């Protein structure tokens, strides 16, 4: 599915952000990338869809090498990759529905976009996604009237509107409060699993990563220093990634998480896993 080989990124300032990173995702799993600021997490994610141009190395999405694509083919490749941003990056003045539909821009020609005449299937999918992320009824609300968590949910919907082969998620919860962060992580992971979409997810909150990801990759100073299951993350690994610190409160799943699950009543439109996990 995704195979990154020896990815290197040098910035013009002389900074070598990525030093030969190799990573492969062969099944529809959620891969969380953790690491200190400046480790290269954001650069790595943005190299995959070439929002940042890699200096060398190859990125294979199924049979296509992203790094060698020309402009038009790059656009076609990008529509296969959905991206979710830390700052949501919605078009503030447009409605939720228009923001969702903008996920289909790679598939719909300019004149249809101009006349705002999208295919009926896309509109139905948009409504469905709206429902799945818990924003039913919000289609006509302007994006700038929403809260942070709601905006991120629209961002998730937009990425999934592309029916992507790969999800790239850049610090989705950094601007959100703890409770909303968990809701968002839950939605992302649920929808990724449901649709069988491999996901690369940047996150600095280690407990959140452990709770939700299928696999954890630790990045430090531009190199991968850990790649394995969440429960393999112990204190020595964390020290390797982040440096010396008192890790005793970080390792292991959040207890708060489990408490919250028991107490919350089921809501209509909420994801089924609530009942299943219990």
């Amino acid at each position: 599915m995704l195979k990154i080989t020896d990815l290197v990124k040098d910035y013009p300032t002389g900074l070598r952000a990525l030093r030969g990173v190799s990573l492969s995702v062969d099944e529809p799993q959620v891969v969380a990338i953790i690491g200190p600021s400046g480790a290269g997490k954001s650069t790595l994610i943005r190299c995959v869809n070439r929002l940042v141009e890699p200096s060398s190395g190859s990125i294979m999405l199924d049979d296509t090498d992203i790094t060698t694509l020309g402009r038009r083919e790059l656009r076609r490749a990008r529509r296969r990759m959905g991206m979710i941003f830390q700052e949501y990056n919605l078009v503030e003045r447009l409605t939720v529905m228009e923001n969702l539909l903008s996920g289909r821009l790679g598939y719909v020609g300019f004149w249809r976009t101009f006349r705002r005449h999208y295919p009926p299937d896309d509109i139905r999918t948009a409504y469905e996604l709206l429902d799945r992320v818990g924003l039913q009824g919000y289609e006509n609300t302007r994006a700038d009237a929403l809260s942070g968590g709601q905006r991120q949910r629209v961002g998730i919907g937009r990425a999934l509107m592309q029916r992507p082969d790969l999800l790239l998620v850049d610090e989705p919860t950094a601007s959100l409060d703890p409770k909303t962060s968990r809701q968002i992580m839950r939605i992302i992971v649920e929808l990724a699993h449901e649709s069988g979409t491999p996901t690369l997810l940047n996150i600095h909150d280690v407990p959140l990563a452990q709770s939700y990801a299928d696999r954890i990759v630790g990045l430090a100073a531009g190199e991968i220093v850990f790649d394995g299951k969440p429960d393999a993350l112990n204190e020595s690994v964390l020290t390797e990634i982040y440096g010396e610190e008192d890790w005793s409160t970080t390792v292991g799943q959040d207890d708060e998480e489990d408490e919250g699950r028991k107490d919350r009543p089921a809501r209509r439109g909420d994801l089924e896993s609530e009942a299943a996990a219990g």
Partner: protein
Amino acid sequence: MSAPADLQDRWPATWKRPGLISNPLMQRGAVALAVLYLLWSIGSLEIEWSRVSQGFERAGTLFGRMLPPDFSRWELLLKGVGESIQMAFAASFFGMALAIPVGLCAARNLAPRPIYLIARGFIVITRTFHEVIIAIIFVKIFGFGPLAGVLTLIVASLSFISKMLAEDIENLPSGSMEAIRATGASFPKFLIYAITPQILPRYLGVSIYRLDANIRHSTVVGIVGAGGIGQVLQASFNRYDYDFSLAILLTIVALVFIGEFFSAWIRGKLR
């Protein structure tokens, strides 16, 4: 995602964006109104369409006659430019100075009501009329030449700067003014301590902007005989000396360019 077949029954297949004017009838009404206006205005202008189509040809001829620009009479050009710059400086100076009392009188939180109304009235009237109108009236009274031009520019600068000043004073937080008043300071001291420091930077910035603007405006008042390079330009057009006209125009553009550059530089240093 779920198979499309599932979705068909549950969700609508179309969506319309709520427009600026929500009622669709009013939307069409607004468009119809706009179209009607266009038809009416173009119709009522009594346009000779033959002249319009000829216009492009004539533009070509005109530019042919304008190029190459004729700088041979550069002494006249320089004299005109010099006069314009002097007019701009003199007008800015007096305008800046006079704007202080007028601005103070036009501030609602400082001036007693009748004075405020008179000052504001003056500002409104002088701003309404284009400076060329004011220029031509001055020309009628004082005769041709830069005197009328300087007076016009003084009036224009005055009204612009004093309006800014008055608005700034009105926007001052009343707290700092109250504090100074509470110390028992007399009015002039009050002015210096409470008002001046807060409005000074913008006052200077606006005045410098006005200096640069006056250079631009001095080119225009000349067209009605009020001195400056505008007068030279008007004369050249009247005599069909189009190549000289282009030289003058280029000079004006260069002058404005330099003026803007200079003004931005100084305002940068003020900060």
